[in-house]
């Protein structure tokens, strides 16, 4: 017998009532976990176009599954509590209870796995964002190609919303042709020179799109001829910090998603604790009621446990 407690009839009734309340609270926690999963998934789906793979979606998927399973499990626990004080109705739950404990243990393990995964998948998320953003920047100019025509809007919106520029920083835009050939005057000397200046025949310039501009800058935004100090009055390229967003979009997005997942961490941990409390209380209640029924309705009943009580929830 492990962790033995004596239960009078009065205390059994109290325990059943308290457990009924706790299991309904746990149902609400399950709903909360489900909503958390849904929220995280929608946030990830919103930026789907700049992510290359969907491995990180494992975290919200598991959260949603666990939330739904937790709602069902704890609802069953509340039904068991309601029937526990009625000797005629309790026996039908006996068979189910072992499965219930196994399921509760599985849910707690899954929740712990989610917390671990959200840290472990950070590297994969970074890779996915790196490739996705690189493609987004490369296809920025292809607003006439079906399937890629929304890349420009996506990247512009992303850069303005997250106050970032480029993949690692704004220089990523110098290496890509982001002005479409449709808008280049091929008779102009400047255009011809630029196209000839590199092997691939791309029109590269030291300029960035308007969405990189920082609204907090005291001067009107400088987008073109960024590396040329003489092109603008009173301008020093090396020391100018406020003109464009200095952060790279990859870093901004990772910070955002890590912040989201970290803030859900304490909530998930408290749900794990609650679930374990419900499981332990249900085990006490089950043993106490079975003991009472075995003794044939005498006042006191000893609580009996199976040998594996303390080590169940690993």
């Amino acid at each position, binding site marked *: 017998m492990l962790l033995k407690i004596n239960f009078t009839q009065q205390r059994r009734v109290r325990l059943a009532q308290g457990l009924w309340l706790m299991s309904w609270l746990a149902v609400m926690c399950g709903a909360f976990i489900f909503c958390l999963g849904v929220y995280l998934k929608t946030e990830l789906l919103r930026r789907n176009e700049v992510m290359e793979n969907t491995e990180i979606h494992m975290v919200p998927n598991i959260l949603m599954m666990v939330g739904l399973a937790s709602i069902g499990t704890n609802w069953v626990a509340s039904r068991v509590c309601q029937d526990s004080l009625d000797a005629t109705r309790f026996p039908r739950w006996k068979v189910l209870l072992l499965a219930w404990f196994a399921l509760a243990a599985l849910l707690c393990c899954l929740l712990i796995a989610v917390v671990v995964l959200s840290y472990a998948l950070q590297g994969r998320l970074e890779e996915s964002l790196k490739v996705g953003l690189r493609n987004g920047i490369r296809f920025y100019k292809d*607003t*006439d190609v079906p399937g890629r*025509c929304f890349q*420009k*809007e996506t990247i*512009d*919106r992303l850069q*303005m919303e997250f106050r970032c520029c480029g993949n690692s920083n704004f220089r990523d835009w110098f290496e890509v042709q*982001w*002005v*479409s050939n*449709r*808008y*280049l*005057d091929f008779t*102009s000397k400047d255009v011809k020179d630029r196209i000839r200046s590199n092997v691939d025949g791309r029109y590269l310039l030291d300029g960035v*799109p*308007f*969405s990189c*501009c920082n*609204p*907090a800058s*005291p*001067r*009107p*935004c400088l*987008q073109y001829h960024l590396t040329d100090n003489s092109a*603008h*009055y*009173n301008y020093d390229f090396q020391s100018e910090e406020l003109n464009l967003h200095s952060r790279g979009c990859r870093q901004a997005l990772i910070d955002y998603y890590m912040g989201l997942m970290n803030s859900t961490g304490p909530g998930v941990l408290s749900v794990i604790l609650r679930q374990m409390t419900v499981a332990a209380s249900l085990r006490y209640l089950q043993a106490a009621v079975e003991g009472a029924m075995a003794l044939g309705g005498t006042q006191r009943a000893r609580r009996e446990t199976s040998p594996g009580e303390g080590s169940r929830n690993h």
Partner: protein
Amino acid sequence: MAVLRVKFTKTRRDKLAQVLWILNWISVATGAILFSLGLFLKVELNKRGELMAGKDIQYVPNMLIAVGLIACAINFLGGKICYDCVDTTKFLRWKLIMLPYIICTFFFTFCVLVGALMCYSMRGELEESLNLGLTEAMRFYKDTDTPGRCFLKRTVDVLQIEFQCCGNNGYKDWFQIQWISNRYLDMSQKEVVDRLRSNVEGKYLIDGVPFSCCNINSPRPCIQQQITNNSAHFNYEHQTEELNLWMKGCRQALLEHYNYIMQSIGLAVLITWLFELSVLTGVRYLQTSLENVLRQGDPNSESDGWLLENSFMETARTNLHIIKTLGKNNQIDTSNNGDPNINIPSTSKAHYGPDNMPPKKTSEAS
């Protein structure tokens, strides 16, 4: 001839009291909702406070907040009264207060209605205020080194990005002001000097707009400078180009945003007003039926409830008479020889002296 007379049995009276108790508590909740709506509107107006100049429109959310708080208090009292009205003995406690309470609540519902109407009438003042505020903000866009105005550039940029608008009425407003500070102009260049000389006030005016006017839906990279010059950009036609910049003016965009909020709030306040009026009607019926029960003496009997005891004209006349005679409280009533305890007929005998004999008639006729 009572107005809208209804017969109430004892059970109906009790049921009415209980229902009114619940409704009063719901009204407390709606009063709290009104309060929070007023608070929400205040916060929304303050968020764009820098872009509104001149007229003070804070009186609308302040009115809503005050009305919400008073509604909570009045309906809380009403709930208490209705709860006690189920028992005729407890009703005696509230008997004297009920009529003044009903009259006060009736006038209060007018305040709620005024609050609702103010929400709809605010639009004109808001438009003027925004017009002035936006013009000022655009004029001081370049003054990022002047304390007190240094955040206007950021405010205007963020506004234009968020509401997808450009300028006051349209993007051409930017052509008429200097939005590039002199700190960033090279006065030694010929082009700059020419531009400064080209207008009376010596302002550096260009046909360009800030970057926040750029439309993200445009298929080509944003054209911000030399907008009216077709030859400056390849494959560009200024007149037909619609996707390059935001076409809406910021005043229009902000007005639409606030209109939407105001209409929703106005609707909610109107519904609250109707609800309050119906609760007030119920309380009035309850009051009159309970008073009639007291008059009849038997607490279990049927009684009549009404809105007004006499017809509308009669009640108006009586009340006006009361208001008129209110001022005459201190004046002596001279119609009964000044003594209010004696009721002498007004045609009294002539007083002929101490022996009260009428004088002899003289028969001479000279």
